[in-house]
């Protein structure tokens, strides 16, 4: 354990924040969908993967990373909206298990389609040239791209916060996440709001997948493990709580990062141990409402 200097630990915490940023983007969308629509979206990992493959495709047609960063979340968000309108909408009001099973099946379909289109092999994904290298962050050299991931997530969080806090739509979403029925009673056409929420959720998943691609490449099943972690984050943060998703996402990122330092093979297990401990102490998660699932 001689190598465990404070600086190394600090670096690892920082790396955890970059990892956590990706979890946050995933969990925000899942938490929104659950809070407002009571949809447990098992296809969220597939939308994440679509973010990466969408970029692979767009880069193949001569697009660059920056174009992808803008268009891919938008395009995948639109796909998400189509899915909501056509597949999920007929299932509202039928209980939580219908959309759950549907999205579970949808994930398989999306993954298989990508296998057919792009092959089953992992595809490499280059870090954009402007973001290669490392910068000194005071405690040591840190990969520039990871800083970029943290920064983009920060910008997205600020944007999302402004949208939620400063717009009428945001007010409806905040209220709807706590009490969807009140929003209906007050005469708001929730169908339109749910469509937008689905678009935002799936768009954020795509952004997460796109940002993760330069770190780990693209593979058809890249969404599987992140889906499991994003579930943990959502549960630990409290289903339906956005602030909870952010804090729990960063926490889980740091836990994974620190565990990999001492026992890489235990990193995934550590995440579930964390969840078990949090749920034992606080069954509704950090900021969840008690009894939401009952």
């Amino acid at each position, binding site marked *: 354990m001689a190598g465990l200097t404070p600086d190394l630990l600090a670096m690892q915490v920082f790396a955890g924040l970059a990892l956590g940023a990706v979890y946050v983007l995933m969990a925000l969308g899942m938490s929104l969908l659950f809070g407002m629509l009571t949809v447990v979206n098992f296809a969220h990992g597939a939308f994440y993967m679509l973010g990466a493959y969408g970029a692979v495709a767009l880069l193949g047609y001569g697009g660059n990373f920056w174009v992808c960063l803008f268009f891919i979340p938008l395009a995948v968000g639109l796909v998400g909206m189509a899915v909501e309108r056509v597949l999920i909408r007929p299932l509202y009001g039928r209980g939580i298990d219908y959309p759950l099973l549907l999205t579970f099946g949808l994930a398989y379909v999306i993954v298989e389609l990508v296998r057919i289109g792009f092959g089953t092999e992992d595809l490499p994904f280059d870090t954009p040239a402007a973001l290669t290298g490392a910068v000194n962050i005071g405690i040591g050299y840190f990969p520039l791209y990871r800083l970029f991931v943290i920064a983009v997530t920060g910008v997205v969080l600020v944007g999302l916060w402004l949208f939620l806090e400063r717009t009428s739509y945001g007010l409806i979403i905040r209220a709807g996440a706590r009490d969807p029925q*009140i929003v209906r009673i*007050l005469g708001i056409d929730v169908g339109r709001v749910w469509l937008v929420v689905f678009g935002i959720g799936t768009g954020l998943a795509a952004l997460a997948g796109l940002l993760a691609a330069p770190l780990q490449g693209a593979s058809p099943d890249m969404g599987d493990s992140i889906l499991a972690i994003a579930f943990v984050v959502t549960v630990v943060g409290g289903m339906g709580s956005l602030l909870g998703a952010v804090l729990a996402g960063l926490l889980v990122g740091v836990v994974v990062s620190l565990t990999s330092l001492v026992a890489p093979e235990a990193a995934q297990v550590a995440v579930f141990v964390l969840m078990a401990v949090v749920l034992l102490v606080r069954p509704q998660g950090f900021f969840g409402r008690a009894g939401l699932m009952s």
Partner: protein
Amino acid sequence: MPRDAMLTVEGLQAWYGSSHVLQGIDLEVARGEIVCLIGRNGAGKTTTLRSVMGLVARVRGRVVFDGADLVGRPVHARHARGLGYVPEERRIVQGLSVRDNLRLGLLAAGGRRREADAIAAMAEIFPRLAERLDQSAITMSGGEQQMLAIARALISGPRLLMLDEPSEGIMPLLVDEMFDLLRRLREEGTTILLVEQNVELALGIADRAYILDQGTVVHHDTAAALLADAAIQERYCAV
């Protein structure tokens, strides 16, 4: 019998899953009336209001409001026609300020009223809210939260206001204040359909009342006649 019916409910049946909760409700509310639904716990009062608002998935029968049958129409379409609903247990939105709760009530109106004017108008009717506009709604007492729930339903200018047990769990002083307010609203032209456990209070304010039992209307009369009829009250309303 009312002459100028605003709301007519005919043969209304409702189900929760396979349980047949409303088994044919008939009632009428005339323009400018206060009509009260009374009856024991579980009689179907809440379900009647929820069905009129469009919140119950499986219903049959007719719900005619201002000449149009609403059955099958979405909740927002009913709201747009002038139905307002204050559900039981207040249901103010916990994380929001008093002002945001009020704004929420206004959003469906789609800019028909200027926000500042509408909030100022509510603040005038509800002085207790005026002092607390920027406070988080959960910091208020139960009675104040109920006032907020009513203001939130009123702010979009409904023509028929439905209230489900507004006095539940509220201290007597505020209950009196609230019922005074309902009288004033009626004087200013709002028609009211009220569900109320406190029978004396309800009959004191209502023009007419319907007594529900096991999903049907078992009796209806003017409030004055019902108030005088101890036997009926004993039979259907004793808790």
